[in-house]
């Protein structure tokens, strides 16, 4: 990491040096300039203690980048803190692989100016490149007290942690639960499955007794995060700052893959994305069960499908039978980043702390399950009070929040994009997931290498 930042720092002075070298052609000059670069960049990265060298602090406005959903958060802060000068900028939130933030930061790194002070991103793997680019400030080395940081749900900030240093704060959690249609389950006399084996068996039963109805969807790019992650298939592990191991054919991967194959084959698991027009039109009213993240409840059932109140219920994710450690997957969950280049560290830190922990926003306004535990309790109470769900969803969601499996690596490459480009087309063409596992492994290794990771055995 340090090496890379140094290279970035050296780039500008290196360019000027090269131009001069063309004229002077002096090798001594080159050496002197190289030495100057080395010491200069040493200053910008600070010590290896994890601290960083603050830019000269000024009184200018606080620049905050948010997506349209989080605009409410920034505006509420401005309303409650009228003395803070804020420049609120909306952008696409880096969603759907737009890479907008990374693109902009790499351009700002070239021009050495323009970085926002605080950024919200819908992606939770930003730390993987932002640390390397020297963009994010370490948060647990004095900026935010440990007493505050311990208020997050367990492992919530794992995607933000690189070598023990925290580089971003998680906005919301996307722990997976088993969403299901409560009245339908009751009417047909089915029990909500507690194990994956029971889930598969119920899928077989539904295929025979109520063909057309669904127990899940395998057509989304986040399919591996719902099933593979929850089923403890650690496709890749980050073993060092730039090294990973890839294993997609472990016992857990293979048995989850064959579960998907069985249910796709008997048509109880659809190959359509839950966000596709096809699904909305033909399958949204055929959902018996749908394993998925916390935000499925509000965003998908209530918002997109307009499922009537009193139908949707949540249960804990199924587990492998006999497995004593229940785990769940995770789909997204945004993050907040603080710029290491900020000239307004104090107000930026205040805003960052407020926006991630304040009950006024996270508990009462935020659309997703807050990553900060006490705000999450308020949020759940509000959900219960809305009487939309057929059961009390707070129990399953709260339990799942602490069960996100820690064996899934957050690399710089997008696991979703790799699955979408490698496994999904194969499944669409009729191949089994089991047969595609080796190709999945190759693709992860290739993309990891392209991002500069050393891929171990």
């Amino acid at each position, binding site marked *: 990491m340090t090496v890379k930042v140094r290279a970035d720092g050296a780039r500008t002075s290196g360019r000027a040096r090269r131009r001069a070298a063309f004229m002077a052609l002096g090798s001594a000059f080159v050496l002197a300039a190289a030495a100057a670069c080395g010491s200069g960049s040493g200053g910008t990265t600070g010590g290896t203690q994890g601290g960083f060298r603050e830019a000269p602090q000024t009184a200018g406005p606080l620049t905050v980048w948010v997506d349209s959903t989080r605009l409410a958060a920034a505006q509420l802060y401005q309303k409650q803190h009228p003395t803070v000068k804020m420049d609120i900028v909306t952008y696409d939130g880096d969603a759907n692989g737009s890479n907008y933030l990374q693109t902009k930061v*790499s351009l700002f790194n070239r021009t050495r100016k323009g970085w926002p002070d605080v950024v919200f991103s819908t992606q939770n793997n930003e730390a993987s*490149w932002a640390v390397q680019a020297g963009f994010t400030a370490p948060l647990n080395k004095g900026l935010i007290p440990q007493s505050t940081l311990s208020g997050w749900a367990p492992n919530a900030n794992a995607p933000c942690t690189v070598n023990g240093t925290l580089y971003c704060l998680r906005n919301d959690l996307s722990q997976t639960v088993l969403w299901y249609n409560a009245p339908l389950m009751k009417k047909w006399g089915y029990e909500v499955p507690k194990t994956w084996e029971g889930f598969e068996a119920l899928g077989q039963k539904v295929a025979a007794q109520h063909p057309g109805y669904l127990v899940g969807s395998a057509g989304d*790019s986040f399919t591996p995060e719902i099933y593979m992650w929850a089923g403890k298939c650690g496709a890749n592990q980050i073993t060092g700052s730039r090294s990973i191991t890839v294993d997609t054919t472990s016992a857990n991967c293979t048995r989850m893959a064959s579960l998907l194959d069985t249910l796709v084959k008997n048509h109880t698991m659809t190959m359509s*994305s839950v966000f596709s027009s096809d699904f909305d039109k033909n399958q949204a009213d055929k959902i018996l069960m749908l394993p998925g993240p916390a935000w499925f409840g509000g965003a998908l059932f209530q918002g997109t499908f307009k499922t009537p109140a009193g139908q949707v219920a949540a249960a804990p994710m199924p587990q492998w039978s006999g497995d004593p450690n229940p785990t769940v997957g995770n789909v997204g969950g945004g993050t907040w980043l603080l710029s290491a280049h900020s000239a307004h560290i104090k107000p930026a830190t205040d805003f960052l702390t407020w926006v991630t922990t304040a009950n006024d926003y996270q508990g009462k306004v935020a659309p997703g399950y807050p990553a900060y535990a006490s705000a999450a309790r308020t949020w759940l109470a509000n959900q219960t009070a809305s009487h939309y769900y057929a059961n009390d969803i707070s129990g399953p969601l709260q339990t799942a929040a602490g069960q996100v499996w820690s064996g899934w690596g957050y690399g710089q490459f997008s696991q979703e*994009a790799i699955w*979408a480009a490698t496994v999904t087309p194969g499944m*669409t063409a009729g191949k089994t997931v089991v047969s595609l596992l080796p190709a999945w492994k190759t693709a992860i290794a290739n993309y990891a290498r*392209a991002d*500069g990771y050393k891929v171990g055995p």
Partner: protein
Amino acid sequence: MSTPSTTVGGRAGAPRARRAWWPGRAGHAFVAPYVVLLIAFGVVPTVYAIDFAFTDATGRFAGLANFTSAAADFRFVPAIGHVALYLLFWLVALVVLVVGLALLLHGLTARAADRTLRFLYYIPGALAGAASVMVWLFMLDPAVSPAGFLLRAFGLGTFPQVIAPGHLPILLAVIAFWTGAGGWIVVMYGALNTISTDVLEAARIDGAGPWQIARRIQIPLLRKWIVYMVILAFAVGTQLFVEPQLLSQASNGVAGRDYSPNQLSYDFAFQNNNVNTAAAVSVELLVVGLVVAGLFVARSGFFDAD
């Protein structure tokens, strides 16, 4: 004595001298803004890219290292293959269909039908690039497409089935044809109108049918226009970006990611944080475009005055 004569000579001579000193100044004035923009947005970025392509991240001369690292990337060879296949479909379709449709249009005797068709051909070209691709994202989704019945007739019931990797060269060629061909049909039609009616009349009197007229008179006279179209279409085709990029976003990455060299260059720059290799890919595209244009110009006698 000499003073007045010099003055007189000067007065009389000045305009003549100025004209000789700068003959086509009106023409130059018209071209100047273009030249300024060409330098600012064409030449300078090109030089900048070449500079990047031969240096490393610290600005040191890197030889061909960036080119070899691009070629060694696992996405590079497939991307070249994708674009080559796409170009094959797109250029053949463009030449055959554009010339064919322009000839048909020119042969229409009903003026109203002719005018309506010309307008219809041109409409898609009036949509901006990205917007016209957006139209196709709907066209290709059987659940919402007006041509959904056609897609289902081919056994393609869902969007992921339609955009299966093997279908992409044809789909992208269809999109490119729809968005770009209309303008060329109108251009070819205009070129056909410059062919003297006497020549066509003479051919007809000699007993040539429409097919022979097209093959022996119209197409040979259109040759330079066709070459011009192929050069531009080739350059645009090798730089394929918007279509697969939007398709990739619309399908959440199922199809079109890292599809073309231009996308690969973009990914190098902004995902892999490697601007120098990105520049190397763009320089390669520039060289390929220039070489092919050079070949076509040389072989067709493009700049020969008739």
